């Protein structure tokens, strides 16, 4: 890993991400501005085109900010829909982790592939999905992305390269790796990104396919979103050794980043994606992040596995939207008014999308046997 990929959010440094119980073996990324802040606000930044942070192009930043805001507001509505009993089943919210999905997807083209997780709304939005079709899917409606057959945990949007969220932890590692193999065999320069939570580090499939990806030099990026909790259990209770030692054992290129800093995520993702596109093989990106809500919408009482202090620390000190807004305005890249306008537009978009979803018709019962076979 390269230290230039560590983080420099504008907030005062915290000693460590709250919730980390034993520092030193993994958490090199502390949120501390470890080097001088240049006018670019970052250390060792390079590679034009590597990501949103590589320049101060206001439209690109506003796009990234908008995408993060769309995720945040989408999840607020998803939570409300659940709590008001309008949404069947349950859902796993991505709020708090927005910078990871947006930073990584900013480095991708529409033709690139991603695979997603049960906590997948953020990846789906970041890869280009429409909120109205997503809400319709969450509500089981015929106009949803997948005609209401997938729901929150299975949204797929193949037109934007999203091969689907997956409700089996780690279950999409093979799919992403296979998509990368396709890209290679078809002679394209497409890249595949496999998003997974740190809980998937317990699944053997991940290691089987990382081994193949490195043997075959496949253009795949494994993005481990460490939000600290395997459902209701802190990852240090489930994860032996250092996380990055695992991909390193295969000789896979690794990097580590503050997942709350979209500029940092975008920059490192840009380099890793470019690397994959060049034919230099797979990478593993460890992003340190935090989920604001519980494991799922119904996980309300969380005291037994994490403290309210920890949660409020992340929300108040490490919020990816707040950090990004401060970073942008301090540098004069955009104004606070512009960001407020973005938020207002996103809130209006989301309101309309929820209304669309609620008013959309359910599928006809006859659709139950449709799409079992192609």
């Amino acid at each position, binding site marked *: 890993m390269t230290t230039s990929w560590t983080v420099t959010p504008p907030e005062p440094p915290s000693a460590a991400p709250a919730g980390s119980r034993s520092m030193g073996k993994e958490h090199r990324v502390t949120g501390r501005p470890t080097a001088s802040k240049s006018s670019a606000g970052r250390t060792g930044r390079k590679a034009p085109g590597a990501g949103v942070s590589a320049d101060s192009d206001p439209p690109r930043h506003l796009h990234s900010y908008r995408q993060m805001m769309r995720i945040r507001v989408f999840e607020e509505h998803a939570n409300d829909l659940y709590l008001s009993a309008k949404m069947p089943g349950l859902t796993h919210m991505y709020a708090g982790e927005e910078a990871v999905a947006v930073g990584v997807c900013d480095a991708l083209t529409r033709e690139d*592939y991603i*695979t997603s997780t049960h906590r997948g709304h953020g990846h789906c939005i970041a890869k280009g999905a429409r909120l109205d079709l997503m809400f319709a899917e969450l509500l089981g409606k015929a106009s*949803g*992305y*997948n*005609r*209401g*057959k*997938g729901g929150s945990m*299975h949204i*797929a*949007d*193949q037109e934007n390269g999203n*091969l*689907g969220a*997956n*409700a*089996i932890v780690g*279950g*999409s*590692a*093979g*799919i*992403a*790796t*296979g*998509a*990368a*193999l*396709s*890209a290679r*065999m*078809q002679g394209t320069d497409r890249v*595949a990104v496999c998003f997974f939570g740190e809980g998937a580090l317990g699944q*053997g*499939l991940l290691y*089987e*396919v990382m*081994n*193949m990806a490195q*043997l075959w030099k496949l253009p795949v990026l494994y993005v481990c979103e460490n939000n600290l909790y395997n459902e209701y259990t802190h990852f240090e209770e489930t994860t032996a050794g250092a996380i990055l030692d695992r991909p390193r054992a295969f000789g896979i290129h690794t990097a580590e980043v503050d997942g709350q800093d979209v500029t940092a995520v975008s920059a490192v993702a840009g380099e890793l994606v470019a690397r994959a596109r060049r034919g230099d093989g797979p990478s593993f990106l460890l992003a340190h992040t935090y989920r604001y809500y519980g494991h799922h919408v119904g996980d309300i009482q969380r005291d037994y596995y994490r403290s309210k202090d920890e949660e409020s620390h992340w929300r108040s000190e490490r919020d990816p939207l707040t950090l990004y807004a401060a970073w942008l305005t301090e540098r004069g890249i955009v104004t606070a008014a512009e960001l407020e306008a973005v938020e207002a537009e996103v809130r209006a978009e989301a309101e309309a999308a929820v209304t669309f979803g609620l008013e959309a018709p359910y599928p006809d019962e006859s659709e139950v046997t*449709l*799409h*079992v*076979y*192609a």
Partner: protein
Amino acid sequence: MSTPSRTLSKEGPARTITFSQAVNEALAEEMRRDPRVFILGEDVAEAGTPFKVLSGLVEEFGPERVRDTPISEAGFTGVAVGAAMTGMRPVVDLMFGDFLTLVMDQLVNQAAKTHYMSGGKLKVPMVLRTTLGATRRSAAQHSQSLHAWVSHIPGLKVALPATPRDAKGLMKAAIRDDNPVVIVEDKLSFQDKGPVPEGELIIPLGQAEVKRAGTDITFVATSSMVLVALQAAEQLEAHGISAEVVDPRSLAPLDADTLIASARKTGRVVVVDEGHQSYGASAELAAVIADGAFYYLDAPVRRMGAMDVPVPFSPVLEDVTVPTPKQLTALAREMCPPA
């Protein structure tokens, strides 16, 4: 095996080749026809698999398209699922059917459900070749017949070729299918010989074949048990019993009509299948036939499957676990009263 198959293809003259050669020929023809088709699995390239079914393919198509993998069944099956979703048509070689246990998540939760969960937006056109069958003295972890497991899952298709001809025609149909198809081959049949037409031969999935016509009793037999049923039918001739042998050839989709028509004609049915009898494919086939032919039946539909024990190593023990022509003949004689 005299009854002509229904096929969609223009058949050339038949030659006699082995089951193994028929599979190899199907793969080679499809790989020449369609550059998206490729093979991956353990020891598929230079080794040509331990059964030598794939010998010569890597020489023609190269190691990219005949791709040796690590011993990571779940991993390479998952890679195939992803490749299939993104425009390739992989053929996974899963050396032993027992290893289905290792790939079930990728097959059942991923491949089988992707098209449905995506509302029809994504497809998984892949084939997984694997094996079944005991009596190779391979003991409990290399002898199982687990085809019922995958047949239980909507979204998967399952084919069980019993002859070289079916092996070629079903493989070519499977590769051209837009769904995940599991092809289960009987390990003991790889060296069996039979007539296989040259050139195009597509046997659509979901078409049973009457392998032998008869009037007194129907044997619905799958895969390894087709030969057992044919041998039993021959033995029964001496006892004045005319047995019909019907091979479903694929369990999903299932050609229930052909099975039911035979049952209605003969009035007596034994389903013979090498999977364990309890909760096995034989139970489903028997139920389908009972539903469709009840008023035509002169006796309850009977089943013969592998014994409900792990497959033992000792030949003396192993041989009693699998249905034999002798047992089937005895059961048929019991069911068919003397004229």
